[in-house]
């Protein structure tokens, strides 16, 4: 944070030498410093996973139940009532593949946006690269994702969807989901330190995005004249990609995929810069 110079003095071997000075302007991410604190990142991640999966039997159950319920409701509304197309697979499975991608993004972002404020005691008492806190949210969400994925395999087998080569691209879509969440999480968590209502705005806006992205319906259902505007939502390419990857059918839209990738890169860079610029004030304001 406040390191402007750090030199291991060769003549004294391991002696840690540090000069703390005021810094100004935009700062790049000090990856070496983050790496030095990888132990803390690990410990925080373990803490969250332990807490989530130990506390209650329902904790694990909830991880399985939540996406299943969401997919069930969406398939009832869109499949049974609105009777949308589902690429020839049962609507529950169709909706579930959208929910999986959407959840990976939204649950990570939700926890990231408040992580600095919930850990205010740590932020104002101990030094560590603050970016550790949002990063530490990813681990337990990845475990949730793995559980949801296992459930998908069960659905896949039960409904005979079959396995496809497209499944090998899963890491790409995961990188997009977690990358977008991280970039936006860095922005919102830093903003939430100064403006507490950001923590309330995020959970209000996220469910709206659920309907503005192809979670419960395919892109084909969107009127052609609106698609250009619709595709401004970077979640479109990411969620469509998840579905294409998991179902092995439908179409992979090149334009929205490239747009999602560019957006992810830009939001990570922008989020990091914003976070780093505001980091030095966290302890004073929080």
């Amino acid at each position, binding site marked *: 944070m406040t390191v402007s110079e750090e030199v291991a003095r060769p003549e004294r071997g391991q002696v840690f030498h540090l*000069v*703390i000075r005021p810094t100004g302007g935009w700062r790049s991410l000090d990856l070496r410093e983050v790496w030095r604190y990888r132990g803390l990142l690990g410990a925080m991640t373990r803490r969250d996973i332990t807490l989530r999966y130990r506390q209650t039997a329902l904790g694990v159950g909830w991880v399985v139940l939540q996406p299943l319920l969401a997919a069930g409701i969406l398939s009832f509304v869109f499949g049974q009532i609105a009777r949308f197309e589902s690429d020839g697979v049962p609507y529950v499975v169709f909706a579930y593949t959208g929910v999986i991608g959407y959840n990976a993004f939204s649950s990570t972002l939700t926890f990231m946006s408040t992580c600095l404020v919930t850990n205010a*005691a740590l932020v104002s008492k101990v030094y560590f690269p603050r970016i550790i806190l949002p990063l530490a949210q990813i681990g337990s969400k990845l475990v949730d994702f793995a559980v949801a994925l296992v459930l998908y395999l069960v659905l896949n087998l039960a409904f005979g969807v079959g396995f496809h080569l497209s499944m090998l691209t899963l890491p790409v879509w995961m990188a997009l989901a977690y990358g977008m969440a991280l970039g936006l999480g860095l922005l919102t968590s830093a903003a939430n330190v*100064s*403006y507490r209502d950001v923590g309330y705005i995020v959970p209000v806006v996220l469910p709206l995005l659920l309907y503005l992205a192809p979670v419960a319906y395919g892109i084909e259902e969107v009127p052609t004249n609106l698609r250009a505007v619709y595709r401004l939502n970077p979640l479109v390419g990411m969620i469509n990609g998840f579905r294409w990857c998991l179902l092995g059918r439908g179409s992979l839209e090149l334009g929205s995929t490239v747009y999602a990738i560019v957006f992810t890169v830009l939001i990570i860079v922008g989020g990091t810069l914003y976070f780093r610029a505001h980091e030095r004030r966290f302890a004073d304001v929080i």
Partner: protein
Amino acid sequence: MSSKAPSSEARIQVRGLSKRYEVEGERAGLLSEAIVRRLRHPLRGQKESFWALQDVNLEVGPGEVLGIIGKNGAGKSTLLKVMSRITEPTSGEVELRGRLGSLLEVGTGFHPELTGRENVFLNGAILGMRKPEIQRQFDEIVDFAGIDRFLDTPVKRYSSGMYVRLAFAVAAHLSSEILVVDEVLAVGDIEFQKKCLGKMHSVASRAGRAVVFVSHNMNAVRDLCTRGVVLDSGRVVHDGETVDALHCYVDLHQHRSTAPGVFVLEDRTNNDDHEGRLYLAKLVVEDADGPTATLRTGRPAAITVHCEGLPKPDEVFTRFHLRNELNEIVLASDTRMAGPDAEVSGQVVTFDLEQLPLLPGRYFIDVGLGMKKTRAVLDQVASAGTFEVSRDDQYGADYQQYPQDGSIYLAPRWRQGTAAATPPVTPRGG
């Protein structure tokens, strides 16, 4: 500055360090409010600020235990926060030679749902320890905390004492070359506090470590620190011997004395606790010959409190505390103690001590006014006045005083006991 290790060897060097805080606008607010504010006053920035630290220069060498003392808001915690990189300085710099570890407020970074074992690793990581480092010292930490039976119990079931012990044990085993301790010894039982102080002694004496210690416990500062720094309004006003620092600290509290034994309290600013108006005007310490700065053990003395502008003097009580150099209250009195019939309410009240029961040393007087009915505080001044009890042969026995003699003077009524049943005590002399 005082004599120190040569600067190239210092563990901590603070040079011209200043820190400014914005009073308004820096605190957490609402985004919506901020937007509205910006729309209403597009050009006005929030400018009000104050300096928490001003041009602080310090050095802490290896093996030193530096005590930092000062009133609330003097900048002690800010200084530690800058040193430990929690907040950035506004100007100046701090140079550290060695890893810095902080002894945190108890339980920071502990999670109640996790077991003792899990919390040791989590807390160690938060304090900057590596996993193998924690593993190596794990048994020692558990042993020091004395919680081995409850290692796999969630810490939410721990007693507060166990909690404190475990938290301290982790931090005490930090292998950093610089240790920062901020007012953590205020909790825990006496036994454990002693153990912690002992551990800190050994930490500091272990080759080349430096400890920075902030506390309001003057006993702890006196016993532990090899050097003392006094901060006042963000500036270093003393840097040197611990004992001198303690004296300097108590002097800071003192109010203006116009003549020996006369303390004028009128030109107080808002830094003392009071509700609304200022009523306490003057405090006078007297012996048989009038106002004085020096009293003598066993001789008459009087403390007079003058008030101004009291609306209903009859409904007001006055009280005072006497504190010794270690900030401990040694005695107190209150006009209500004289009973409802004693007419001691009013603008001027005097407390008479026929025989001053205090041993030689420096004493400080806190005075306060309150409403008899509601017990509400009207006005109070900490360390409104001070006096010295002069070194004197008060026992008439050529006795050398020990620090452990306390503050209270008792006539030395000793007599020879016998192995047989003891007769009832009768005062000698009269």
